[in-house]
Every structure is written in C-alpha cells, then in structure tokens.
C-alpha cells in the first residue's frame, strides 16, 4: 500500500508545474554553486602552490646568517584546501589560510578569505551546502505542507480512508515520496562536487548524502505532522514556515550566542597577553624568566664542572634559547589547550541544542566530512606548530653546537636551510570526522517520523 502511495505522490509531483519549476531552479542554483566552488577552490589551491613555492625560494635564498636569526626570519606554512571544500567551505573562510612560523611565538592563522569578501557576502556563502541547508527545508515544505491538510480540503481524504488506508501508511508513503523527490538534488550536488574535487573518498560522500537526507527527512516529517493536525492547508503553511524560521534561522543563531555566553572565549589580545605573562613570570606566576635562565646556567656549569659559560663546551646562548623555546611551548600547550577546551564545550552546547534544530547537527557534520571544520583547522595548526618547534629546535641546536666568543657570531649557510624542509600536508589523511551529528540527525528523523505517525493516528477526515 505504501508503495502505491509513493508512486502516486511521485506522479503527482511530476505533473505539478510549480514543483517542477522550483526543483529545476534549485538544481540550477546548486550547479552554479558547485561550479563556482570548484573554480574558487582551484584558484585558492593555485595561489597556495605559488605562495608556497615563493616562500620556499625566499627561505633558501636568505644567505649566511646566524640560525637564530633564521628562526626569526621564519617561514609561512599554508593550510591545504580540501577538495570537498567546494561543497562546504565550513569555517575555512573565517579562520585563516596561512601561519607564520617563527621563534618564540605560536601565531594564529592569517589571511582569512572572509576579510577580502565584499560586504554582500556577509549574508552567506553561495555553497551547495548552504543551499541545501537553507533552501532544502523550504523544498520539503513545498512538497509536504498540504500533503494531508490538502487531501482533507479537497475531500479526497474521506475516500482514501474509506478505502481502508491506514493514516500512518498515508503519512509514511508521503514522507518516502518527498524524500525521493529531494534525493536527486542532494545526490546530484554531492556527486558533481566529488567528481570536480577528484575526491576518492566515497564513504565520506555517502555519509554526507545520508546526513543531508536525514536533515531534509526531518523537515518533511515535521511538516507532515503539522499538515495532519492543521485545519486547512493555509494553516499548515503558516505552521511549516514558522518551523523553518525557528529551526533553520533562529535557533542556530541563538545557539551560537548561548554557547559563547556559557563558555566565553577570551579576546585575542587577552589571550596573548596571558601567554606573554606566563612566559615572563612563569606558568605559576612565581618563576620569572631571569630565574629560569640563571637556574639553567647553574645546572650547565655544574654538569660540565666549569666556572663560566665561556668554558662550556656548548654555546650557552643556543641552549638557553632552546630552553626558553621549550618553556614557551609548555605555556602555549597549556593556554591553547584551555582555548580548545572552551571551543569544544561551545560545540557541545550547540550540539545539545540540535534537538531544537537539525541544522545544528548537520552544520558541523557537513563541514567535518568536507574537511573544513574546526577539527581540520586545528589539526593543521597542530602540524604547523610541530613543524615550527622542530625547525626552531634544529636551528637552536645548530647555535648550541657552535660555541664561540660571541653567542651570535656563528653563521650558518644554505646547507642548513635546505635541510629544513617546508610543511607539506597535501597527502595527509583528513582527521576522522565527528559523526555524533549523524547520530543526532538519525534520532531527530525517527522522532519527527514518530510525531508524524502520532498525528496521523488522531487524523480527522473532515475539514
């Protein structure tokens, strides 16, 4: 019986010129978004390659200098761009694309594409993900708001129910049909994106399809629940539009504010001021830098059984620099750890509020599967930091291995610069995606479907 209802609904949708037009327009919009996304990602990848090559040439051409000066000369590391970023840009536009690696300091990423965007783009990025997240629920609304209320108004509901159709079967058939109408949009956008991205990660594309399918299914089921209870299709339309405004627009915005209020993030100024204080006065506030240097000096003099630093078999400046670097690393690990914990707690709050808005579950899932979420960003930042530490350590060791009258009179050359490679992450596996959003979407879909079935159970056939 459900199969018959599904076939009937699909035939009705096919013959409805309004539905055909809206679906075609959305498909065209998705095509534009995917092509524009692919063009943009390719341009960014080319820019990144060019900048990385230039950066490497600058590093190699820096000439003879003290290794510590080279550590301050530094180098840029460029964040790789995921192929599937053309489908969902995630947080990429807001978190920077390159990081300056230098001695003593763990910098944040710079060059955020959003900074260069025209003001009009503040209203949202035209990505396939955004289109499906914003317009997809409206399409679900178009397909389902009058599904039951319209049958009742037309008078066909009496005939349907008198034929022995279970109201629950009617709802399930209409839900399945709505999902089948919407599925080609999701699949077309994802397959086009995967093809243009050259992505070989079909499992991720499959999970994206499942996530978006459940997301749209949630709205279709909730609209059906509203339609089953509404007295008229115009009342159902108002109810479904209210649902869209709340679940797609309002709750995600409010959830971000609640998360930031519950777990405030320090300003960039306060964060780095705290880091500078920790390095200067010690993590516990009672271990100033000068004391740490004096302690290191005493420890080295004792170890080598000499009286002055000039008698040491190593360059004290190099050892002290590395020790200072390692202390700084501890400070950065601690403070960044706290900052990341705040970000995680904020994400938990948003995910908890996903019970009120499926978009809050889909957004992080989609970005994670496309490699454009905060976790991917953090993974690059961590790899860059590891690279920075290895680079500075090697440069400081080189200083330490060359004792002399003046700590910085030693000059290294191109051999050392060549030895120190650039950070390449192109072949790195994307971090494993957090799939809790998918589980929440699955639960929400089941909940919404149960609600629709419960509404159907109390179906009234007369207007």
């Amino acid at each position, binding site marked *: *019986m459900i199969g*018959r*209802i599904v076939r*009937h609904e699909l*035939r*009705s949708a096919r*013959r*409805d010129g309004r539905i055909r037009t809206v679906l075609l327009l959305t498909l065209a919009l998705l095509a534009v978004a995917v092509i524009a996304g692919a063009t943009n990602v390719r341009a960014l990848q080319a820019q990144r390659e060019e900048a990385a090559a230039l950066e490497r040439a600058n590093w190699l051409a820096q000439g003879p200098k003290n290794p510590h000066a080279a550590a301050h000369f530094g180098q840029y590391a460029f964040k790789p761009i995921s192929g599937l970023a053309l489908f969902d840009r995630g947080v990429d536009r807001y978190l920077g694309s390159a990081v300056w690696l230098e001695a003593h300091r763990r910098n944040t990423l710079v060059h955020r594409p959003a900074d260069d965007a025209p003001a009009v783009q503040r209203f949202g990025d035209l990505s396939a993900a955004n289109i499906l997240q914003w317009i997809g629920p409206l399409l679900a609304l178009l397909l389902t708001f009058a599904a039951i209320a319209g049958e009742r108004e*037309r*008078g*066909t509901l*009496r*005939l*349907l*129910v*008198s*034929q*022995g*159709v*279970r109201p629950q079967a009617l709802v399930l058939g209409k839900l399945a049909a709505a999902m089948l109408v919407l599925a080609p949009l999701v699949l077309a956008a994802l397959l086009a994106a995967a093809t243009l991205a050259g992505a070989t990660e079909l499992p991720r594309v499959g999970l994206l399809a499942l996530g978006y399918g459940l997301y749209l299914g949630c709205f279709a089921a909730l609209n059906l629940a509203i339609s089953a209870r509404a007295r008229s299709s115009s009342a159902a339309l108002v109810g479904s539009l209210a649902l869209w405004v709340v679940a797609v627009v309002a709750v995600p915005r409010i959830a971000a504010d609640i998360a930031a209020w519950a777990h405030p993030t320090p300003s960039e100024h306060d964060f780095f001021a705290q880091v500078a204080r920790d390095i200067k006065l010690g993590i516990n506030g009672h271990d100033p830098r000068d004391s740490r240097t004096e302690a290191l000096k005493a420890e080295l003099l004792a170890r080598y059984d000499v009286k002055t630093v000039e008698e040491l078999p190593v360059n004290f400046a190099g050892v002290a620099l590395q020790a200072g670097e390692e202390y700084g690393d501890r400070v950065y690990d601690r403070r960044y750890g706290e900052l990341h914990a705040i970000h995680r707690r904020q994400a938990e709050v948003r995910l908890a509020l996903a019970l009120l808005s499926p978009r809050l579950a889909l957004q992080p899932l989609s970005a994670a599967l496309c490699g454009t979420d905060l976790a991917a960003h953090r993974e690059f930042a961590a790899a860059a930091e590891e690279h920075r530490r290895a680079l500075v350590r090697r440069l400081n060791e080189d200083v330490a291995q060359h004792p002399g009258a003046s700590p910085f009179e030693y000059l290294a050359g191109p051999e050392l610069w060549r030895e120190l490679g650039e950070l390449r992450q192109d072949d790195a596996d994307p971090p494993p995606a957090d799939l809790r959003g998918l589980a929440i979407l699955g639960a929400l879909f089941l909940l919404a479907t149960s609600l629709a079935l419960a509404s159907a159970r109390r179906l009234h*056939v*007369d207007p």
Partner: protein
Amino acid sequence: MLRAEALTKRYEEVEALTGLELEVRPGEVYCLLGPNGAGKSTTMNLFLGFAAPTAGRAWVCGLDVQHHLIESKRHLAYIPEQVHLYPHLSGAENLEYFAGLGGSAVSGPEIAALLERVGLPAAAHHRRSGEYSKGMRQKVGLAIAVAKRARALLLDEPTSGLDPRASFEFSRLVRSMCDEGVAVLMATHDLFRARDLASRIGIMSAGRLVWEGGSGDLAGEDLERVYLEHVRRAAEEAAA
C-alpha cells in the same frame, strides 16, 4: 451485513444520533430519509469509523467498527454526496489508485471495463478528472466501489445534484450490485429515488429513527405524507 446497535452519537450538547437500531441484509437496499441534521450522515460516519459512537455499536460484516477500524473498511465501499478525485489525474488513473488502495489492483482492460460499466464515456477515461462534471465524478466513485467488490455499500446523498438520466443510471448500477448480494445503506432526501430503489425505508428526524417499513408498505403519496408528518412531529417535539 450492516447493523447498528443502540448507536448513539453526541457532539458536546447536541445529540446527533440516539439509540439507532438498524440492520441491512445482503442484497437489500435500505434508504434513510430525513431532513438536514436528522442524523443520516452521522450514521454513515459511524459505520465508516470516521467518528466514534458515544454509546452503542456499529457492525460491518460481524466486525465492531470501533475495534476493527481498518478491517471493517475492507468490506465497505463508500460514495459521498460529492466524489472528490485528484483533478490532475484522469478518471482511469483515479480508479487505478483508489481501487489499488482498497485492495483491488486493476489494470488497463479492467479499468476500461469498469468505467464502461458505470457509463463513463470512453473519450473521458483518460481526460483529467478536473474537467469532469459532478455526474462523471460520481460514476468514477461508483466504479471505485464496484472494483472493491465490497460486501456493503454506503451511499451518502449520491444522486444529489445529478440530472434525472444520470440518477437513473446510478440507480440501475446500484441495483445491479444489490443483485450480486451487496448490502446497500443509502442516505437521501430523494423520496422518489428511495421508493424506486429501496427494499426498506427508514425515516430519521432529530437523530432518531422515527419510522421504518418496506418499500411496498406505502404508495408514493403515502410515503411523502408519512415523511412530512414525522418530520413535523419531531420538529414540534424538539421545539417543546
């Protein structure tokens, strides 16, 4: 086949149906006559399970409707006063869909035969039903009922608004279904149609069955007189 047992329905302060006792046997046409608000449509809704009785029971083929909402409908076909079809589908497509949902999958030749049997012109079979007249829609409704091969047929003012020829054809088809053993309960205002078609007639007024008899018990003018008398008396009682 169809049985009402002290069937009562109250909507808040209004008693729409009071203690209805009624039985329709196989091959019988039982016509319920009565003015608007007499309780005819409420009776239909209770047999269809569209409303729950306040007291009493409605039985379809031995099944208590309230306890067998879906199963009881398998034995029932229903034609309302206005058969509403999907306007974007043709008569043939509507028939295929509704008959399929009723458990009788019908295909091309059967659909054509059914529509021909109810008198829908062949040229109209594949036209959008949105272009159909009321009579044509009623015929598709009847075809859906015939396709279902139901053992009981509920007709709620089915000939209202039909021209005499269409009404006559409709009656002929209902009679042919009766001849096949179908029990028919028909609510109508049409005294002429009732006398023409019914095996038994019941007159309802203010939610009560106030008179019941065989169609042969009364001549045409007597039926009209009895009907008007009972309706007037019930109205006076209600006013008092």
